[in-house]
């Protein structure tokens, strides 16, 4: 973390913070095979923790993350995770394939450094087309697996 500060007598001050943001935010949607099934926020969090545990073991299961917001109807959640845990969390979400013996998938809708994440253009699409579902391939961040 570095910061550059320029202070001038006139009162103009500029501070540049690089790599200082402590958290990353993910907007995710759980897609279940049986669209009628619902799960509560607590169940969702335990499900994600189970995924972390299977991919990254006990060290992964100990990763701190928060479910900031969860909508049971659309199975959409807003997660907050420490920046250094982002790759672990994201990769475990990607590899989560079954929820109680039914196929499922997490769609990572957006990843951001700020909670302003809710400004996904989704509402605009609703506004214009009433599209019911927006699909986005969850891009696994490329910096996770550079070629050896």
């Amino acid at each position, binding site marked *: 973390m570095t910061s550059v500060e320029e202070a*001038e007598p*006139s*009162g*103009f*001050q*500029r*501070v*540049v*913070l*690089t*790599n*200082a*943001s*402590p*958290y*990353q*935010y993910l907007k995710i949607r759980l897609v279940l095979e049986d669209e009628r099934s619902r799960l509560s*926020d*607590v169940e969702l*969090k335990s499900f994600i923790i189970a995924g972390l545990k299977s991919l990254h073991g006990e060290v992964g299961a100990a990763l*701190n993350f*928060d*479910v*900031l*917001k*969860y909508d049971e109807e659309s199975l959409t959640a*807003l997660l*907050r995770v420490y*920046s*250094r*845990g*982002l*790759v*672990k969390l994201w990769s475990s979400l990607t590899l989560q394939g079954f929820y109680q013996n039914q196929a499922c998938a997490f769609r990572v809708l*957006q*990843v*951001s*450094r*700020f*909670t*302003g*994440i*809710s*400004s*996904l*253009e989704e*509402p*605009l*699409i609703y*506004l*214009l087309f009433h599209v019911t579902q927006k699909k*986005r391939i969850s*891009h696994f*961040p*490329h*910096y*996770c*697996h*550079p070629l*050896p």
Partner: protein
Amino acid sequence: MCADLSRTPRTLLVCDRSSFLDHKNRVSSQVEQLHFIYKVSVLLPECNSASSSLDSVFNSFTSFYLIRKLPIYELLDKDFLQSAVYQGSVHGLSFRTRIDEDNCVALMPNGRLTLSLDKDSFELLGFEGKPSRFNHRSCSRFEVSVDLTDSSMAPGGRGYLRLLTGLKSHLQLQTDFLLSHHPGGGASLQALLSRYDWSEHKPKVSRRCLSNLVCPAPRSCDPHSLLEWLGAVDADVRCENSSSSFLSSFVCPEANTTLGHALSVSVSGLLLPHDVQRLIQELRCYLQQPQLESWVSLTVHGFTDSLVSWGGSEHGALIGGQDFYSLLMFHDHTYRLYLSTATCHTCPP
């Protein structure tokens, strides 16, 4: 094979602190730099309903047009250039195209047309361009940027004809396109609109009244926590201030006051920087009224899949985040401006 799992993309946040009365303040020029605004949200503490003048500003955001399946060469149309591009500022952005997988097009108010193309399309087009900075490993994306107001791009000129034939006969690029014009509005775009399937849209205004909001001290709070809190209010995240909850340990940073009421207003659509300027002026007037809490915050989000970031620099969506700025205005004309960028290289102005 086993890269460091705790590595994260580079982040950048610029915090400016100054006063509107200071002749050196650059707020208006900074506001102009973010061209494609998707959403503006305003938080008014201790406010039940916005005053009529403020409300009228919210409702008078310029409407924008959506054209379905617009062939991009139409943007080079001579009449369109003369009636719209040369006459004022056009904001145009391809809609429902993904910056990382589709061909994207943007027309900036300064008359610059930018195309972000994949390799095949770029080779088909046969026009000068440069590799995108967001290529990873192989060169798979290219950026073509032309200034339509330049003399070489005048209708009939060599560059103009080359690009026109490229777009017309080689690469028949068609996308849904969002368009708005300042100051002419729809009238100056009418010729283009009439030829295609189009619709007019008013930016959507939504208001939310919040009560019993735990609020940090805006002047002393750390920028990241403050932005997080503002975002959480905007996203309607419950904040019970108990860090022991299983679900979430999110707490209000340095909570010091509880606001009885607050009003959160957001406007979304393809918005013009000019309208944001008007809103800032109106908010400054609003702040001059005697009241309890003497600050307001204004957050402006850019399109995630926009292909230009601050100014005219290239924007890539893959590396996370989006462009936005947050302006915190106080009673005594001072302000804090937090600018952020998604890209790894550019610093906001």
